[in-house]
């Protein structure tokens, strides 16, 4: 196998960063190990790549070997009585929910897109809109098997090889490569969810609604109108959602059918959604987004409750195919900060005001409620997160870069954290600052043990763990 045959140009999700690398597609653990050996001989870095849905350089290694794990995407076992599913790392969340939902189960934690692979989900230790209640996806992993660059194949559970269990999940693929993952699914009694939609007038009300709404619901998520200032700063809409109890849905077999879950491909039954991003493009600027946000806020003032399918509620990012293309040639970046509940309001007030002052408001803002977890490279806090999307252009790069450095300082001062599937500009100093020396030393010790030759180094690793 010539591992340097297929040189290709790879991008991040958001099309704002590219790097060329040699792509290989292993079919099994033996091939992964043989790739490790060849890469070691050529002294090239290796990284695994799933669906490529990270907003940053997590699945890129310029000039190195990128392992496309989608060649290993089988669901190897599914038990509809216990809800245990075992799959290879390249299997997507879409494959998983398609498998389990008709049997009355649902993945306990999902990302905003169903295109992500299980390997990627574990590496980033993704969270969903139910983080405050169900934690991250890692908390529902029963067992996984991984191959290390040393060639060792190890099995980890929360009890067995626990140090590696809690480090490889959240480890951004820098310790080893998952080859088999077993997850516990969650029972559901309907294909529908009950969603309470309520408006919030300002940031204080916004965070209070997340805090107070969370205990009585299974999911909670806020839309934040990042262009509104003054007294309306932080206004938006909360969607607080709960599962239907057993018996609440008179015909669960029907609502759980895949045909009743799939996202429509056309609007009003006629207009193909695949064309929609062209029509969004003219609105992706300060004025256009102000108009759209204001209209959306006015529409959200009506407090109401409705039922929505699981897929439609969770996978908002898949609702408009290729939506990220509407951000134009420079693409987009996402800046997400996690803040303790005590400091979130003042820090985000400062951040939003700063973005207005610079004339660079985010075009999308999404808030969630979080709880801490035990994983080594955890991003969670007892508080909230705010994810914001920025359009990148040739003209705004330098200014945006300076502004995000200011944001980093504000977040660090407020005791906040960052998430490595999202932020693309976080520096090694910032990373060291929020993890602390002890966590980093612990991680590097494990890294030395699992990967003594330093083969697994993504561009993300080189950026945030540089010495």
């Amino acid at each position: 196998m010539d591992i340097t045959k297929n040189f290709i140009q790879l991008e991040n999700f958001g099309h704002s960063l590219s790097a060329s690398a040699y792509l290989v597609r292993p079919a099994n653990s033996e091939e992964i190990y043989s790739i490790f050996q060849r890469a070691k001989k050529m002294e090239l870095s290796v990284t695994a790549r799933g669906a490529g849905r990270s907003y940053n350089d997590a699945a890129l290694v310029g000039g190195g070997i990128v392992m496309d794990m989608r060649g290993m995407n089988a669901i190897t076992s599914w038990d509809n009585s216990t809800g245990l599913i075992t799959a290879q790392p390249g299997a997507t969340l879409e494959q998983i929910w398609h498998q389990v939902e008709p049997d009355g189960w649902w993945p306990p934690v999902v990302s905003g897109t169903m295109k992500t692979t299980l390997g990627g989900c574990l590496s980033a230790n993704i969270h969903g809109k139910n983080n405050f209640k169900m934690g991250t996806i890692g908390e529902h992993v029963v067992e996984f098997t991984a191959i290390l660059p040393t060639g060792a194949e190890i099995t980890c559970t929360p009890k067995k090889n626990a140090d590696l269990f809690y480090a490889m999940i959240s480890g951004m693929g820098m310790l080893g490569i998952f080859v088999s993952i077993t997850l516990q699914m969650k029972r559901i009694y309907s294909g529908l969810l009950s969603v309470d939609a309520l408006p919030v007038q300002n940031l204080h009300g916004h965070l209070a609604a997340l805090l107070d709404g969370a205990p009585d619901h299974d999911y909670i998520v806020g839309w934040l109108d990042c262009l509104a200032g003054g007294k309306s700063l932080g206004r938006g809409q909360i969607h607080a959602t709960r599962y239907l109890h057993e018996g609440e849905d008179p015909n669960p077999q029907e609502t759980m059918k895949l045909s009743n879950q799939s996202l429509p491909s056309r609007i009003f039954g006629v207009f193909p959604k695949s064309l929609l991003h062209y029509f969004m493009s003219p609105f992706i600027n300060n004025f256009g987004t102000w108009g759209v946000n204001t209209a959306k806020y006015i529409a959200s003032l009506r407090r109401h409750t409705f039922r929505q399918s699981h897929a439609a509620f969770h996978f908002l990012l898949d609702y408009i195919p290729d939506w990220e293309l509407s951000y134009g040639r420079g693409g987009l970046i996402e800046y997400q900060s996690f803040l303790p509940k005590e400091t979130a309001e003042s820090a985000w007030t400062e951040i939003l005001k700063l973005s207005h002052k610079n004339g660079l408001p985010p075009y999308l803002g999404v808030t969630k409620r979080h709880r801490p977890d035990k994983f080594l490279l955890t991003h969670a806090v007892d508080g909230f997160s705010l994810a914001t999307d920025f359009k990148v252009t040739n003209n705004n790069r330098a200014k945006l870069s300076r502004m995000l450095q200011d944001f980093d300082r504000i977040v660090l001062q407020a005791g906040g954290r960052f998430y490595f599937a999202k932020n693309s500009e976080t520096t090694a100093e910032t990373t060291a600052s929020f993890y602390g020396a002890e966590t980093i030393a612990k991680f590097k010790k494990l890294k030395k043990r699992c990967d003594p030759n330093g083969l697994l180094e993504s561009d993300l690793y080189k950026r945030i763990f540089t010495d």
Partner: protein
Amino acid sequence: MPDLSKPDQTQPKLAPSTPLNPRRRGIVVGASGGIGAALSRKLAREGFTLALVDRNKSALQSLCDEINQTAGGMRTLIYECDVTEYDSVPDSLRRIIADLGGLDTFVYIAGVIYFPAMDEFNFAEDHKMMEVNLLGAMAWMSAVAPLFQSAKSGQIVGVSSVAGDRGRIGNPGYNASKAGLTNYLEALRNRLSRHGVNVLTVKPGMVKTDMLKLPGAPKPVLALDPEQVADLIWNGMKKRKQTIYVAGIWKWIMLVIRHIPSVIFRRLSF
């Protein structure tokens, strides 16, 4: 010459490429010479991260230090290399791409010239010019081209010369090496353009570099500074041109010269 296929621990760590500080990655072979150094400075100013390749290590080091100081942050790596060591090119290239973190642009400027007397035939010098000006370029581009073809992107810049447009009495060996390079680049363009790769042939006229200080060198006519040449090459690169003459006036001069019938041309004294 050092073995470039192994990582050199003394190389500095490059600043990361991020969406807000994106870096294009380029290799300049023959970076320490007049046009090479000027183009390297220009590309660094335009946001490139560069691998500077040349025989002359001390010149490379001072150019690298100068660029890193003025560009802010680590932006260049250096590789001591003789382009006539053809066999080591693929391994060296793989190492350089790994160090750079990818590759978007490849520039070949390495070139030597010898000015023979009118009645002198000097195969040893001709051989050297063919090796550096043509075979070195072919060795490097043979390794770069399949990568860019596979990636369906990239730009190859070859610095040839107006001297390749016609065989003149003054310098048969140099004319042949540059004619070969021009022709090779054209063929490469025809192969690669269908894969989305741009191949730019640069044909400088006279440039005020050390070449013009060699014994037997002609008096400068319409000679440009290397910095002017670098600016013009960068313009051609940005516009993804196929062939550019620098200065532009040479396009018209060479148009005339290319069409002088042999019956007249062989009687001329240049």
